[in-house]
C-alpha cells in the first residue's frame, strides 16, 4: 500500500506543562529551526499548558517564510470563523496553510462533516449566493462568503473512529493517524513519555460545558506497547485496515484515494543501541519508517520532539537516507511518484476542451482551476469579468515556455495576463486558458551609472515607482499605479512624465521574451532588432515578455495638482485646455476627465496635472494657465514624491461584465473636435471621458522608430460607455478628427482599429514579424493581426 505521494517531513511543536514566555519563544525558535533545516511543515498543539494552537501557528507564520503550517483551530471554534481565520492565515502567510480539524477530542463525524461544509462554503467566494448550511451541529444561515484563500487549503482529519475514517474518505484532503493506532513495538526500556507528547492537546473546558475536563481523550492515553514482543511489521496491519476504510469511502464518493495524503506522527530517540520502534541509530529509524511508506501508505511524517538536537539529527541523518531508500523501493516496485491528485470536486468543475491531465508538471501545483479555492482571485480582471477553464501561473521563463507549449495544443482561447488591467487586452476569457505571469515581478537595478533597471512583467507601476524612489529615479509609465508592466510596456505607456521623458517604450533597451514555440529570446538594438522594434507597440502579438530592461530618469518630488472646473461650456474648455497644453513647457503633463452630465447641474471637469519640479513658483506658473481654462471650483496642489502619486495598494480583481470603450489619438483639440467631443459628452452615451496629454518628448521619436506609430499626437482620448451599440456610432462620427490609435484603451474589435494603430508600412513590417514569430496566431488576445491576409481581428480571444 503506497499512494506514491512525495515524502514530506514536519515537526510537531507543543509547549510543555509550564508555559512561560521563554517556553513559547523556544517553540517558535524550533519552528524557525525546522524551516532552516528544510522541513516541509510545522504543526502545533497547545500542550498540557493549554496554549492556543491557532495563536502559535499565526505567530510562527509571521516568523517563517517557507515552511508550511499545519494549523489547528482551538476546539469549540465556530466553523465559519475558523474558515475566515484559515483563509486569513493563508493570505498573510502566502499560501502556506493546511488546516487540521482537531477531532481526536470530539470524535463526532457528523459535526466534523458539517464543519467541513461550512468551511468550504465560506471559502467558495466565487459563488455569489450567501451560504446556508442547515446541520445538526452547525448552522449557517445566509453568511457572506469569502475570503477565498490564495490556494486550496488542504483539510486534515485526525482520528481513528470508523465514522471519521469514512468522512476522511468522503471529504478530507489528508488523514492524520492517531498515535495509538497501530501501536509499534516499543523497545524494552519503553519511551512512553515521548509518545504521549505527540498528541497532547488536552481535554478542555467548553463554554457549553460539553466536555468533562480531565478525561484523557481517546488516542492520547495509549503509548507504545509495554513490551517489545510484537514482531516488527505485524502492527502495521491496523494502520492498513484504517487506510482501507478511507479508500473504500473515497471510492464510493467517486474520489481517487490518492487525493488524500496520509500523515503519521512519530517520536523516538537516537541511541547507540537498537531498541524498539524508532529507538536506535539513524539506520534503525529508516528501517522502522520504510514499511510505513511502502506498506502502510504514509508519506508525511511529523516528528514530535521538544529538543533541537533530535530535530537536527532527524533532518540530517534520517530524512535523506529514507528518501533514497523510498526512491529505490518505489522504482523497484514500479510505484510512480505523484502529488495527490486534484479532488473529485475540483475535477467536476473542469471545462471542456482542456486536457487538464496534460498540464506540465512545472505548472500543475500553481495552476488554478474553476473548482480551486483561489479561482475567485484569478478569474476576473480589473475591468472584465471572466470564467477561464485554467489559469497557469508560471514562475520562471522556462515555465512560461512550458505554458505556451501546452496552451497552443489546446483548442480553447488563450489570454496573457500580467497585472490584469487590460482594456484592449482580453487577459481573461470564458472557458479558455490564461497564462498569468504576475509571479514574475522582480525589480532590480542593473547599473547605477546608466540607470539601467530590469523589471519583470508582473510588477505593478506602483511597485516600480516605490523601488526606484530610493535612487531618486522614476520611469514615466501611466497615471495609475495598479496597472502592470507587462501590458503597458509592450504597447506604449502614456504617463505623468510623458511630455518631458517620452513613452515608457522609449526607455526600453532590451527585452527577454518567450515566443509562440516556447523558446526564449532576447531582443534589443543589436540582437533581433526587428523584433525589438515590434515589441515596442505591438508586443502582445509576438510572445510573452518575461523581462524588460529600461533606462530610467532622475526624478525627485513633483507637483501634483487636482482641479475641479465648471466645464459647462464644454467645447470652449476643451479647446482652451488643449491649446494651453500644447503651449506648455514639457515639464508639465495633464489630463481631464468629464463625467455624465446631470440635469440642472454644471458639467464638472476634473483636471489632474503633474509638474516635474519641487519648486513652488515653477509649479504655480505651470498650473496657472491650465487652471484658467474654465471657472475653477476647487483645487489642491501638493508636492509629493513621484512614488506617492503612483501609490496603489495591491489587491485582487473581481470585475463583472465587459468594458465598452472607444479610443483615439488626436494631434490637436481643434474647435471642430472640441465641439464634437462636447456633443458626445452631452449625449450621455459616455459616463467617463478621459483625455491625456501626450506630445513633447514622445513626438521627438520618428513614427517608424517603433511599432507605436502615433507620434504626432498631442492627445489621447478614451470614452467609456454602457453599450457598444450606442457608443460605436457616436464615436465613429468623430473619426475624421483623429490621427491614430493607442491600442491600450480601445475595445472595438473591427479591423479598422488595427490599421489606425499600425498604419501602412508599420503593419506590413508587423505582419512579416508575425509570420516569422507567430505564424499560427497563438497570441491573439490583444490587437492581433493575421500573419498574411488583410484580415485582422483585434482581441479575438475574448469569450
Amino acid at each position, binding site marked *: 500500500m503506497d499512494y506514491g505521494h512525495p515524502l514530506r517531513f514536519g515537526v510537531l511543536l507543543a509547549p510543555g506543562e509550564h508555559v512561560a514566555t521563554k517556553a513559547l519563544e523556544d517553540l517558535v525558535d524550533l519552528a524557525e529551526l525546522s524551516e532552516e533545516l528544510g522541513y516541509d511543515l510545522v504543526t502545533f498543539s497547545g500542550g498540557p499548558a493549554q*496554549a492556543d494552537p491557532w495563536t502559535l501557528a499565526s505567530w510562527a507564520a509571521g516568523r517563517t517564510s517557507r515552511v508550511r503550517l499545519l494549523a489547528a483551530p482551538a476546539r469549540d471554534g*465556530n466553523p465559519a470563523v475558523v474558515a475566515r481565520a484559515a483563509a486569513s492565515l493563508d493570505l498573510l502567510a502566502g499560501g502556506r496553510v493546511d488546516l487540521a480539524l482537531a477531532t481526536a477530542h470530539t470524535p463526532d463525524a457528523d459535526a466534523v462533516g458539517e464543519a467541513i461544509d461550512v468551511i468550504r462554503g465560506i471559502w467558495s467566494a466565487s459563488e455569489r449566493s450567501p451560504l446556508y448550511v442547515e446541520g445538526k451541529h452547525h448552522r449557517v444561515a445566509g453568511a*457572506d*462568503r*469569502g475570503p477565498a484563500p490564495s490556494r486550496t487549503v488542504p483539510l486534515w482529519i485526525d482520528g481513528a473512529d470508523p465514522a471519521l475514517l469514512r468522512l476522511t474518505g468522503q471529504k478530507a484532503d489528508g488523514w492524520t493517524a492517531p498515535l495509538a493506532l497501530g501501536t509499534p513495538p516499543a523497545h524494552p526500556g519503553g519511551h512512553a513519555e515521548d509518545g504521549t507528547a505527540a498528541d497532547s492537546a488536552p481535554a478542555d473546558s*467548553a463554554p457549553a460545558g460539553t466536555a468533562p475536563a480531565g478525561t484523557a481523550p481517546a488516542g492520547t492515553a495509549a503509548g507504545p506497547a509495554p513490551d517489545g514482543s510484537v514482531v516488527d511489521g505485524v502492527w502495521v496491519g491496523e494502520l492498513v485496515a484504517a487506510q482501507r476504510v478511507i479508500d473504500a469511502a473515497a471510492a464510493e464518493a467517486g474520489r481517487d484515494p490518492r487525493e488524500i495524503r496520509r500523515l503519521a506522527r512519530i517520536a523516538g530517540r537516537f541511541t547507540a543501541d537498537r531498541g524498539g520502534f524508532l529507538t536506535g541509530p539513524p539506520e534503525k529509524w529508516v528501517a522502522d519508517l520504510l514499511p510505513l511508506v511502502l506498506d502502510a501508505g504514509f508519506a508525511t511524517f511529523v516528528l514530535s520532539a521538544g529538543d533541537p538536537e533530535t530535530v537536527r539529527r532527524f533532518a540530517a541523518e534520517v530524512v535523506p537516507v529514507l528518501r533514497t531508500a523510498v526512491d529505490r523501493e518505489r522504482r523497484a516496485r514500479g510505484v510512480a511518484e505523484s502529488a495527490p491528485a486534484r479532488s473529485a470536486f475540483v475535477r467536476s468543475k473542469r471545462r471542456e476542451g482542456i486536457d487538464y491531465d496534460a498540464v506540465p508538471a512545472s505548472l500543475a501545483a500553481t495552476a488554478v482551476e474553476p473548482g480551486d479555492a483561489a479561482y475567485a482571485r484569478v478569474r476576473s480582471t480589473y475591468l472584465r469579468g471572466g470564467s477561464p477553464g485554467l489559469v497557469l501561473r508560471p514562475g520562471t521563463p522556462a515555465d512560461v515556455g512550458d505554458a505556451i507549449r501546452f496552451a497552443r495544443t489546446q483548442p480553447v482561447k488563450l489570454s496573457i495576463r500580467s497585472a490584469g488591467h487590460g482594456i484592449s487586452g482580453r487577459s481573461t476569457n470564458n472557458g479558455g486558458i490564461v497564462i498569468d505571469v504576475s509571479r514574475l515581478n522582480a525589480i532590480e537595478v542593473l547599473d547605477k551609472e546608466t540607470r539601467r533597471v530590469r523589471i519583470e512583467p508582473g510588477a505593478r507601476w506602483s511597485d516600480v515607482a516605490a523601488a526606484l524612489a530610493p535612487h531618486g529615479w522614476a520611469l514615466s509609465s501611466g497615471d495609475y499605479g495598479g496597472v502592470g508592466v507587462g501590458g503597458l510596456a509592450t504597447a506604449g505607456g502614456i504617463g505623468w512624465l510623458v511630455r518631458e521623458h517620452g513613452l515608457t517604450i522609449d526607455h526600453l533597451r532590451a527585452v527577454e521574451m518567450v515566443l509562440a514555440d516556447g523558446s526564449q529570446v532576447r531582443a534589443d538594438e543589436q540582437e533581433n532588432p526587428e523584433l525589438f522594434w515590434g515589441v515596442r507597440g505591438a508586443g502582445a502579438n509576438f510572445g510573452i515578455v518575461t523581462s524588460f530592461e529600461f533606462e530610467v530618469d532622475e526624478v525627485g518630488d513633483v507637483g501634483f495638482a487636482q482641479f475641479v472646473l465648471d466645464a459647462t461650456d464644454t467645447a470652449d474648455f476643451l479647446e482652451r485646455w488643449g491649446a494651453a497644453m500644447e503651449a506648455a513647457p514639457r515639464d508639465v503633463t495633464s489630463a481631464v476627465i468629464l463625467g455624465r452630465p446631470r440635469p440642472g447641474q454644471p458639467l464638472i471637469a476634473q483636471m489632474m496635472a503633474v509638474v516635474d519640479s519641487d519648486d513652488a513658483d515653477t509649479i504655480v506658473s505651470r498650473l496657472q494657465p491650465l487652471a484658467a481654462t474654465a471657472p475653477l471650483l476647487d483645487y489642491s496642489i501638493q508636492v509629493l514624491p513621484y512614488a506617492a502619486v503612483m501609490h496603489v495598494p495591491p489587491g485582487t480583481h473581481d470585475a463583472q461584465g465587459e468594458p465598452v470603450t472607444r479610443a483615439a489619438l488626436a494631434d490637436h483639440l481643434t474647435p471642430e473636435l472640441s465641439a464634437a467631443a462636447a456633443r458626445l459628452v452631452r449625449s450621455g452615451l459616455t459616463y467617463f471621458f478621459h483625455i491625456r496629454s501626450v506630445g513633447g518628448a514622445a513626438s521627438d521619436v520618428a513614427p517608424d522608430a517603433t511599432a507605436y506609430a502615433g507620434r504626432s499626437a498631442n492627445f489621447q482620448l478614451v470614452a467609456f460607455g454602457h453599450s457598444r451599440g450606442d457608443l460605436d456610432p457616436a464615436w465613429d462620427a468623430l473619426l475624421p478628427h483623429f490621427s491614430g490609435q493607442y491600442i491600450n484603451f480601445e475595445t472595438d474589435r473591427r479591423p479598422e482599429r488595427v490599421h489606425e494603430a499600425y498604419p501602412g508600412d508599420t503593419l506590413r513590417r508587423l505582419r512579416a514579424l508575425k509570420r516569422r514569430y507567430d505564424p499560427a496566431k497563438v497570441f491573439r488576445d490583444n490587437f492581433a493581426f493575421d500573419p498574411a491576409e488583410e484580415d485582422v481581428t483585434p482581441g479575438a480571444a475574448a469569450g
Partner: protein
Amino acid sequence: MPDYGHDLLFGSFITPANATPHEVVALAQESEAAGLDLVTFQDHPYQAAFLDTWTLLSYVAARTERIRLSGNVINLPLRPPAVLARAAASLDLLSGGRFELGLGAGGFWDAIEAMGGRRLTPGQAVDALSEAIDIIRGLWDPSDTSRFRVDGTYYQVAGAKRGPAPAHDIGIWLGAYKPKMLRLTGAKADGWLPSLPYMGSLDAITEANAIIDEAADGAGREPAAVRRLLNVSGRFGAAGDGLLTGPPEQWAEQLAVLTLEYGFSSYILMGDDPAVIRTFGGEVAPLVRDLVAKERAARGTVR
C-alpha cells in the same frame, strides 16, 4: 472634571482588509516606526472583506517588536471566552506582554446569527460579557490550582484546568456606550474604549465617566482603575472648526483638553493613511505629552 492621571498612550486603528493583507501589516509596522504605543484592529468575524482579527493580531505581533496590540474590540459572541482567554494569554506570552484585550458585547445580531452565533438581546449580551470576563480572568489564574467551574446563564465551564497565565496583567477594555455596559465597565473592566464619533457630545462623555466612576465605587474600586481610551478620527491640514481638523498643534491642544477635562489618556486614531499615522505618532503625541505633563505638574495631579 476628571483627570485620572494615567500615562498617555497613542495608537492606530487599521482596517483589516483582506484584499491587501500585506499593506495592513505594513501599516502596523509603520505605527510602530512612528512611535505609537498601540496598534488596534476592529473585529467583525461576519465581515467577509476583513482578515480574521485574531490571526492578524498574532501575525502582526510576530512582525513587530515593541508596539502593544489590541482588538478594537473583539467580538465576544463569535469567540468563546475560554478559547479567547487561552489565546490571549498565549499571545501575551509570545509577544512579551504586549497584548491587551479590547472586548465588546456584539451588536450586529443578524450577521452573528447568520454565522451560526447565538442571538442575544442587548441586555443579555452585557450579562454574557460579564460572565465571560469572569471566565477569562479565572482561566488566567493558574495559581489557583482548583479546577475551574462556572455554571453561568450564558457560558459554562465544567472543571477546567486553569492557565496559561499571561505575561502581564492583560487589560480588559470594553467598548461601552449604554448605562448597563458602562456600569459593567466600572465594576469589572480595566478600560473603557468608546469611539468619539459615536459619543455624540462632550456632555455625553462626562455623563458616561460619572456612571463608570459610580459603578467602580460601588464595586469597591478606584475610578482610576479604569483607564479611559478613545477612538478618534480627524484630518491634518489648515485649521478648521471641527474637533481634530487642523495642524498637529491644534490636535495636541484638543487632546490635552480631553485628557485634563474628560479623563481620557489613550487616543487611537482611525485611518489607514501612513502619512497621517506618522504625523500622529511623530508630532501630535509628543506635543500632547508635553502639554499634559506641564498642566499636571501645575495642578499637582501626577500619579
